[in-house]
C-alpha cells in the first residue's frame, strides 16, 4: 500500500486544525476540573498525588511516541515511502517535550513523597537516557546538511535507541527501584480507585489530543520544509 500525500489531504488536515485545538482545550479543562476539584486525595500521599494525573500520561506518551518514531523509521526503510519519514520527523519533538515534562513533574512529585528530587534508580535513569535519545535524533538531523542523508542516518539512530524502551518499561519489574511498579497493567485489575481512574483517563485523552494536534501542525511544517529544500537544491 503506497500512500501519497496530496493537496486534498493537506487541506483536510488544515481544516481539522481549529477543531482539534478546540477539542484539546475543552478536554484539558474537563480533565483539570476532575483532577484538581473532583478527585479525592490519596490515603497516604494526600493531595500531592494529583501530580500523577499529568505525570503518568506524559510518561506514557513519551514511550509511545518513541515507539511510533522507531516503528515509522523501520517502515520507511522497508517500504521507502517518504510519508513515514515525515511522520517520524513531525512526532519527535512532541515526544521530547512529553519526556521532559514527565521528568520534571516526576521530580516535583518525588520531593514530597520520597523526600528527594531525584534518585539514580533504573527507571529514572533510563528515562533520562530517552530524553538524550530524542535530542540526539533531532540535532543529528539538523547538523547534517544533506537532508536526504540526514533523514536516513537519524532514522538509523532512532532504531538503535529503541533498545531503551523495553528497559524503561520493565525496569520496575526486573530490578528493585525506588519508583513504584505500574498501577495499570493489562493482566490485573488496576490498583487505582475508580474515582481516580476517571481524571487520569480524561487527562490521557487530552494529552493524546495535544499530541495529535501538534503532530499534525508539525506534519504540515515538515512538508513545507521538504518542498523548500527541494526547490532550493
Amino acid at each position, binding site marked *: 500500500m503506497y500512500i501519497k500525500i496530496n493537496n486534498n489531504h493537506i487541506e483536510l488536515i488544515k481544516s481539522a486544525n481549529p477543531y482539534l485545538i478546540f477539542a484539546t482545550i475543552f478536554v484539558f479543562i474537563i480533565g483539570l476540573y476532575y483532577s484538581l476539584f473532583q478527585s479525592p486525595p*490519596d490515603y*497516604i500521599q494526600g493531595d500531592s498525588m494529583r501530580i500523577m494525573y499529568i505525570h503518568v500520561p506524559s510518561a506514557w506518551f513519551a514511550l509511545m511516541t518513541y515507539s511510533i518514531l522507531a516503528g515509522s523509521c523501520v517502515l520507511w526503510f522497508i517500504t521507502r515511502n517518504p510519508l513515514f519519514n515525515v511522520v517520524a520527523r513531525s512526532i519527535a519533538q512532541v515526544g521530547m517535550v512529553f519526556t521532559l515534562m514527565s521528568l520534571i513533574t516526576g521530580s516535583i512529585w518525588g520531593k514530597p513523597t520520597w523526600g528527594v528530587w531525584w*534518585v539514580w534508580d533504573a527507571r529514572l535513569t533510563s528515562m533520562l537516557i530517552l530524553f538524550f535519545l530524542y535530542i540526539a535524533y533531532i540535532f543529528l538531523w539538523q547538523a547534517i546538511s544533506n537532508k536526504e542523508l540526514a533523514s536516513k542516518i537519524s532514522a538509523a539512530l532512532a532504531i538503535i535507541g529503541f533498545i531503551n524502551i523495553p528497559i524503561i518499561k520493565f525496569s520496575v519489574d526486573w530490578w528493585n527501584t525506588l519508583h513504584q511498579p505500574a498501577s495499570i497493567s493489562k493482566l490485573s485489575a488496576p490498583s487505582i480507585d475508580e474515582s481516580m481512574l476517571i481524571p487520569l483517563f480524561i487527562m490521557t485523552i487530552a494529552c493524546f489530543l495535544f499530541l495529535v494536534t501538534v503532530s499534525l501542525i508539525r506534519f504540515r511544517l515538515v512538508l513545507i520544509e521538504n518542498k523548500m529544500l527541494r526547490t532550493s537544491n
Partner: protein
Amino acid sequence: MTSLVKSRLIKFLLSLIIVLIAVLIIIFNLRDNIIYFYGPTELLKNSDKQGQIMRLGGLVSVDSFQNETDSIFYFSITDGDNEIEVKYEGILPNLFAEDKGVVVEGVYMNDGRFIANKVLAKHDENYMPPEVIETLKKSGKWQGE
C-alpha cells in the same frame, strides 16, 4: 547473485548467533549493579556486605518504631521473612509510617544493624481515597500490606 544471497545469509546467521550468546551471557551474569536497594533477606545471606555503604529497602515492621529524641529514631525493616534493625538520625520524610515501604541509605554494620544517614519513603502502586480504605477495612476486604 546466489553467492551474494549466501554471504548475506551467513552474515545474518553469524550475527544472530553472536547476539544470542551475548544476551545469554548478560542475563546469566547480571549482578546487582542496577538494583537500587537490597532486601533484608538478601543482606543477611551475604555477610560480606557488612561494613559497606549501601541501601536497604522493605516495609517498616509494625510496632518497631521508637524515637529516642526528636531526631534519633530506631525501627526495623522487614520483607516478611527477616528483619534488620535500623538506627537513623535526622528528619523523616512526611510519608514515613509503620507498615509502609521505605528505602534507607547507610552502613550495614558488622553486628547486623544498619546505621542510616538517609531515609526515603517508597510509595506502592496503590492509589485509594481515604473513604474507600475505611469502607474496605470495615468490611474486612482490605488486604494491603
